[in-house]
């Protein structure tokens, strides 16, 4: 499985660290909604198909990435620096 890092180019998966599901959103930190926290911490849809994930190119440029990977074929549909998406989310908040 190769991940095309936006900085380094295609690299083998052993250079990357999986950093978790990128589809979930953290509840407000002051929220006491148990269901929302339960979903955030434990509930995963585990789809058979495209999945948005955080990866870090830990054995390379060390950038955090958002990768859309097909869980059935390991085909990579899209890769982008995570900080761009996170900065956008921060500006909207």
């Amino acid at each position, binding site marked *: 499985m190769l991940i095309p890092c*936006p*900085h*380094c*180019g295609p*690299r*083998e998966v*052993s*250079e990357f660290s999986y950093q978790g599901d990128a589809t979930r959103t953290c509840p407000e930190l002051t929220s006491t909604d148990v269901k929302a926290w339960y979903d955030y911490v434990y509930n995963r849809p585990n789809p058979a198909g495209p999945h948005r994930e955080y990866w870090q190119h830990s*054995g*390379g*440029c*060390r*950038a955090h990435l958002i990768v859309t990977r097909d869980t059935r074929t390991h085909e990579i549909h899209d890769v982008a*620096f995570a*900080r761009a998406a996170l*900065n956008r989310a921060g500006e909207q908040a």
Partner: protein
Amino acid sequence: MVERQSPLTPIFRPAVHSNDVGSISITLSEVTPLSIVEAACWPGLNERLTAAIQEVTGLSVDTTPNAGVVGRGTAAFSIGPDRYLVSGEEDLSARLARVLSEETGTVTDLSHGRTTFRVSGTRAEWVLSKLFAIDFSPAVFPVGEGRATAHHDIFAQIQRSDAAQFDLYVFRSFARAFWNTLCTAAEEVGYEVIEA
């Protein structure tokens, strides 16, 4: 400044190690420069960072990924988004820090934390290809450019410093183990260990 000692001291033996047909295709040496510095900038300020590197080292580094330049006694190459590894004279870190304001970025002196190996010769690409899963051919890895990669868990930042020459910056604590790995990988083609 505390005097640096090479982590290779107990095992470094300049010698010829020819292969089973008596030939030698590469030379290995330790070329750790006096200063190794990581210069980084905040997002969007890459041109100010490369301007600062140029002011201090005279090297004109491009802002494109993997870009790098080799100068006389100094070198700089991209090791990640908005991050460059710069090597040179002993006062490099202080000079860069004077030019690079906190509003632009940061300077981290890694001189005591990295060891630099030079692999040169006709089979350098072949030997390094055994260790790293990246393409070393000159068409995709031209002179001056840099790559950040890893051999198992030994992180390495590699610059092609000449047509058949690569400089590898590895963590000092892994340097001795990596040197042994490098020598083992070079046995097939025959190698000579030389003093820099």
